[in-house]
């Protein structure tokens, strides 16, 4: 992998800022736009990682931009149009609380990353820290939001985190990084399901479901 350019660093900082934006926004539409922008930015990472713009990075960029930046966000926006989903995110924890958790998670990610032995320079550590922080943010949104559509957005952010880390290997092992597109397929299945089955809220925990079933 080529040394980190200031462009790569700026892109990763933007990605991490978008994490906080997505955590802190109270509007579903804003969250979807944030996820779309994050996906679109990440699409350009292969071009920065490869020393020369060969077919592989160009193809990866085009595919990622299409899937993460366009198709998936459009499906989520369509779900918002067709389903009676309120505009607000409906968090389980307050926005300030989850933002604090996200900040702590980002700090922990940076500390953890620095504890690992790295072959590359600061650039690799920055990529890894951004990856772990993004993964944690996605997980946080998944577990603290009550709308099914918002959970999908959280899942998309989580897999963005995995994608970012994959950039450390994309030159050496493009196949392994490429199979991550299956996770985008899973996200597409989720998004399509909520449209087809008109799911507006996340399903309760299994114990709550069992309890209500016993009451029936």
């Amino acid at each position, binding site marked *: 992998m080529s040394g980190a350019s200031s462009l790569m660093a700026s892109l990763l900082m933007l990605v991490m800022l978008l994490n906080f934006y997505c955590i802190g926004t109270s509007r579903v539409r804003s969250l979807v736009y944030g996820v779309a922008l994050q996906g679109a930015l990440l699409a350009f990472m292969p071009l920065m990682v490869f020393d020369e713009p060969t077919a592989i990075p160009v193809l990866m960029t085009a595919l990622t931009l299409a899937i993460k930046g366009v198709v998936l966000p459009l499906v989520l926006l369509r779900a918002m149009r067709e389903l009676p989903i309120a505009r607000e995110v409906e968090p389980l924890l307050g926005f300030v609380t989850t933002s604090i958790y996200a900040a702590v998670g980002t700090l922990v990610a940076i500390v953890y990353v620095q504890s*690992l032995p790295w*072959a590359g320079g600061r650039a690799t550590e920055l990529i890894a820290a951004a990856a772990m922080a993004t993964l944690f943010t996605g997980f946080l949104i998944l577990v603290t939001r009550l709308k099914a559509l918002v959970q999908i957005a959280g899942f998309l952010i989580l897999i963005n985190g995995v994608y970012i880390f994959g950039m450390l*290997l994309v030159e050496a092992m493009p196949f392994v990084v490429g199979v991550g597109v299956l996770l985008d397929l899973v996200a597409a299945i989720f998004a399509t399901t909520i449209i087809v089955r008109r799911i507006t809220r996340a399903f309760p*925990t299994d114990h709550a479901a*069992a309890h209500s079933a*016993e009451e029936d």
Partner: protein
Amino acid sequence: MEVAIIALPLAGALAALLLRSDARRPLILVAAALSHLIGSIALVASDGTASSGGWLGLDAPGQLVLMLISVLGLVTAVYAVGYLDDPRRPDNRPFVVGLLAMLASLTLVACAQHFGLVWVGITGATLSAAPLIYFDRGPGALAATWRYLLIVAIGLALALLGTFFVGYAVVGAGQAPSLLYDELVRIAPSLPHPWLESSFLLLLVGYGSAMGLAPMHTWKPGAYGEAPGPTGALVAGGLTSCAFLAVMRALHVCDAAGADELPRDALIAIGLLSMGLAAVLLLYQRDFKRMLAYAVVEHMGILAVGLGLGGAALFGTLLHLVASGLAAALLVLSAANIHRAYGTSSSERIIGAMRRLPLSGSVFLLAFFAVTGAPPFGPFVSQLWIVGSAFAGGSALIAILFLVFVLIAFIGMGATVLPLCQGRFLASSAARPRERGLTVVPIVGLLVLIVVLGLALPLPLEELIDRGVAALHTGAP
């Protein structure tokens, strides 16, 4: 040859997709599953060692898992013919196609020698199982399928990250980029331990969610409660076994690197947690289909503990992989017969199942004994082996906890199963379909297999397990 065994069920899925006749489509299922079993036996009998340098190959652990999923594939296929012969299920295309796609994906995992390919196989199996869980479209089916897909998908994302960690360990150590299993074992001593340990933890959590290890098991009760019998059987015995195979391979790499202390501790901890949680949740369980889920969680915990102990316990662990896979499938399929006959899974509304359904009820009772580790069934032998190895290896506390959890699970399940099976059935619950040959013969066949495993372990299987143990210790095929 490995490509052929993977392509076979896929070809069956394609044929099922194109065939218009709903009556004939389940026959494709049986034909594909039977051909798959014959092909698997031929592969294993030809002593298919791992192709050096190849992405596909069958080493001994892979052969063991392949035989297990082949047998389960045939049993569930035959059972499915009887299950699908129901006017309430006119369109069986999604079911047949999904089941065969799942069988193909599981076969890919068994044959894969590349960590990335293993991940692709488990992802494929996970996606294939989703429409199968939803097939009956019960009141809670959508919620169960959603939870299953969400939790396992998060696990798969973490597993992919774990795979990336392995890749970075290789690249960072200045080695040629490779995720081939044999290559990783060979170069493992040169790989940095922090990366291997972190990757293993991610792979354990990731693939552990597909296995149903606690605390990633929360999708299981709903899925087993809603899924049709054949789906539950293949998930309980097949998907879990393939996910466990992936964890075994990851541990082997850590073992070869000398970085196995943390991974083994993690395995034992998560294993005991799963066993303990399952044991507690099995107490006062009023839904006998959800009970199945916790029984499987307990067995996944046993596998994790056995693998974590290693050494002499490894033989028992591999035997348990086969025995518990078959026993879990037996339990699920016999429970499905009872559920279908009574129209409810509430154990408070079912009584006298052995009188109402002499064969299925009796098999269900025997399956309960098998799953809870009673003699003379296979799981009894494997659990005894693991516990004996734990005591012999100086892990007395682990062994005692193991026995306590198994005992609690036995008591808990017994409190649900025994009243359900015994007593006179209520006449008001009699207007339901009776037992069918196609849904009884497979479970009787499974029962015979589990008894054979307990009474006299067949020599070819014993040799295969021995080779599996050797492969996981030294890398020999």
